[in-house]
Structure formats: C-alpha cells, structure tokens
C-alpha cells in the first residue's frame, strides 16, 4: 500500500513541479533502475557501480567480522582480556567512521589492492584498483563495533549451566569455546553481524561520496548530482536501499532458519 501511495504522490508532485532537476518523473527513474547494465553519462552502469560497492563492503566487512568475533568471544569469557581491551576500544567507539576519512586518506592515500599486489596494467588492475585501503578501513570501523559489542554481550549471557555441563561431560577449554560458547552466543553474534553490515554499507556509500572517490554507487550519486541528473541520483538511492534491505533480509532468514531454538526460555 505504502509504495503505491508514494508513487501517486511522486507522479502528482513531478507533474506539478515540472522540473526534472528537482524531481524527475517516475518513469524516467524506473527506466534506469530497470536497465541497470546501461552505461550512464560515462560513469559506468548502475549495476557495475553497485557491484564495486558490494565487493568493497564484503571485503572490509569480512575482515571486521574475522577480528571482532574472536576478540569478542575472548573478551566476553575472560575478564582480564575484557579489562585490557575495553578502555582502549571505548575511546575509539564514539568516533563516527566517517571522521576517520581524513586520517585514513593521509595514511593510505589512493593506494589499493592493485598497489599492494604490484599489478599495474590490464583489466585486473582496474578491478583491484577499485578496492582502496582507505575504503576498507572505513567499512572495517563501521562494522567492527556492532559485531564486537554483540559478541561480548552474547558470550557473557551464555547460561553458566551450559558451560558447567560441558565441563562435567569432559570438554576441554577449546571445546568449550567452539562447541558451547560460540553456538550459544551465535544468535547474538548474528544480530551484531546484521547491524554491522547495515552500518558498513551506509559508511561505505557515504565515504564514496567524498572527494577522491572515482567509483561505487556513492560516487555515482554525487557525480550525477554535479551533472544535475537527479534521475540517476534517485535511481542510485533506490539501489542503495534495495541492496541494504536484501542483505538484511538474508540475515533475517539465517536467524529464523538456524536459531529458532532461541525461543527457549533462557
């Protein structure tokens, strides 16, 4: 119902305003969204730019999860490790990921996977050069804290009886981590991963809008704006929303399918 209403308002407003820089027609935007592989004002296609952003997000995000989950499990289980890291981590937590951009640009500049791997020509170069370290870092920061916090929370709230039971049944420390703490905290970890992915996606798109960026859906929107192509701006925003919603739906599906035992009362 709501999308239909929005469409009606859009059509009415567009007709009323009659200026496609302020509000282009719905059919104009739909044409772009429905032909995502078409090249747009020499910035590449909509799908191509979304793909570049997606690859960036997946890489930075995976890195964040690989660091945050083990660290979170250790911090949640061992008080000493928690005390050791917590003060330090809390100092950086309030810094918005985008506030890192200037510093990160100073550190990494425009160096990318291409620079790191030494490939300087050909098609592979173009792909690798799209993955800038600065971008990965911003995504990492955005995803890291939600995953870390919910992992710590998840591990801390593991019913002590599960751990005692495993001990009595003969589990060693490693088995307690892998077979008890991790699965018991998994619903909380998955929730953190879902939130982290959402934030990482938002951070990336915003970072792509900043100067120095030459590809990605965020770049596409900003660039289209400077060319007064509001239809591309809106099409780009719709893609951002659609990709974010799809990723979220994917995680929800996992939560529902594999963690239905969470309904148990504890």
């Amino acid at each position, binding site marked *: 119902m709501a999308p239909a209403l929005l469409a009606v308002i859009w059509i009415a407003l567009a007709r009323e305003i009659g200026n496609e820089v302020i509000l282009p027609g719905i059919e104009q935007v739909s044409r772009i969204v429905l032909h995502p592989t078409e090249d747009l004002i020499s910035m590449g296609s909509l799908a191509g730019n979304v793909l570049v952003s997606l690859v960036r997000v997946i890489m930075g995000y995976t890195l964040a999860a690989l660091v945050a989950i083990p660290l979170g499990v250790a911090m949640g289980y061992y008080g000493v490790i928690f005390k050791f890291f917590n003060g330090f981590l809390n100092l950086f937590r309030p810094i918005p990921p985008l506030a890192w951009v200037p510093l990160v640009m100073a550190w990494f500049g425009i160096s990318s996977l291409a620079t790191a791997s030494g490939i300087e020509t050909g098609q592979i170069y173009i792909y690798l050069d799209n993955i800038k370290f600065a971008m990965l870092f911003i995504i990492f920061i955005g995803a890291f804290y939600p995953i870390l916090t919910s992992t710590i929370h998840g591990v801390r709230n593991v019913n002590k*009886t599960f751990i005692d039971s495993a001990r*009595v049944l003969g589990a060693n420390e490693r088995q307690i981590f892998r*077979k*008890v703490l991790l699965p018991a905290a998994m619903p909380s970890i998955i929730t953190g991963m879902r939130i982290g992915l959402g934030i990482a996606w938002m951070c990336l798109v915003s970072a792509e809008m900043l100067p120095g960026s030459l590809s990605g859906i965020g770049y596409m929107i900003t660039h289209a704006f400077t060319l007064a192509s509001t239809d591309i701006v809106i099409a780009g925003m719709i893609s951002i929303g659609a990709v974010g919603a799809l990723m979220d739906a994917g995680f929800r599906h996992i939560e529902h399918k594999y963690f239905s035992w969470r309904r*148990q009362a504890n």
Partner: protein
Amino acid sequence: MNSHPEQIIAINRLSKEFTTGAGNTFLAVDSVSLQIPRNSFTCIVGPSGCGKSTILRIAAGLEKSSSGTVQYNGNQVSKPCAEIGLVFQEYSLFPWLSVLDNVASGPEFAGVDKDKRYKDAEHYIRMVNMIDFKDAYPHELSGGMRQRVAIARALANEPDVLLMDEPFGALDAHTRILLQKELLKVWEMTRKTIVLVTHSVDEAVYLADRIVIMSSRPGRIHKVLDVDMDRPRSRAIPEFGKLTDHILKELEH
C-alpha cells in the same frame, strides 16, 4: 592405595567458604565427612542454604573446596572427569543441539567416532523412553522430557558415579513421581552409584538406600539414616510415612 575399596567416594572434612559482595565471608559447608559405598543410592536432604549443592559441585570438580578433600577411588577430585557425571536441575541441555546430539556430546568431547557415539546415545535415549523424540530440540520438549534427556546424556558418558542436583526440583508433582520411578529402573539396570540432592523428604524416602540429613548455616551433616524398605516402595505403607515424618522432625532441629 585405597583403604576402603567399597567406598567409591570419600568426602573428608570438606569445608567451603564464600565471600559475599560486601566482603563478608560465610561458611556454606562446615567440615563435612561422608563415605559413599559403590552401587549405592544416597540422597542428601536439607533446607535451602545447607550447602548440599555445593558439596555436589565440589565432588563433580566444578568448584574448589576451602579445605578438605573429595576422593574418587582414592584419588583426589580437582577437576571434572568422565567417571563422575552430574545432572543439573534444569536448563542444562544445549538448546542448539537435538536430543541425539545432546546425549552424544560427552563422547564427542572425548573423541569417540560418530557411529559409535550415536549408537550408544540411542541406547540411553531408549532407556529413558525418549527414542521417539531423538531428533527433537530441547525447546520442543516438556520439563520432564528434558530431564530424561539430561539423565541419558550423563549416562552416555558412562560415568561410575552419577551426581544429581535436585534433578526433579523444577517438575510438577505428577511428572516428578513418574521420573523417580524411571530413575530407579535406570539405576537397577546400570547399577551406577547415585548421589542425589533434594529438598523433598518424600523423594529421598522413595529413592534412597541411605539418607543424609543436613542442617544449615553452616552446612553440616546432622544425621545419616539407612533405609531398609523393599523397592518399589509404596507411599501407602505406614513405614514410609513414619520415616518421612521422622526425617521432617529431624530437619526442624
């Protein structure tokens, strides 16, 4: 090595002090000594706060004593071991594992291969009459069913001694009586040494060879009684009522 080969568990002058949040210490268990004969069924009864669960947790190797020792076959228990199993009151099953995987988890920790541990697990699941639910998850089961699975899981680890910490404490009266009956059957089939902690005198009189009565603050052994009634015991006979009444009076002291 072992001076009392018939005593599988020997508790020697066991004490446990706890420190409260305010920094005060209190004595939960005060110099408790107790011998548990092999293949016996011992029940420990006492008011809440008498340290009965603490004794069990120390015997299972989950907690350290402040002084005194618990010996299993002449060796001091300092950490959990496969020979001593413990059944908790509730919420001990791993909710992310099916009944079968829960029961097989002890052998899995020990590295037993999949076919063997599932076969053994099914044997014990059958013993507690839960075979129709072997693929169910804990949240799909009632409280009584979960405790059956918890018992099967402890047994699948093939312990020598089975410690039970108020295993039926969270169940309704009817289910409780049903499970007591089944536990006796399991005990007769497996002949494990069982030490069961309960606050129900009725349960102790129904199950035990020997009843240890504890008093609280500090937790001490007040009296040890032998129960000399044939099994299965009927709650209707005068002897049952008399013994129950006697123990209840002792607990008032």
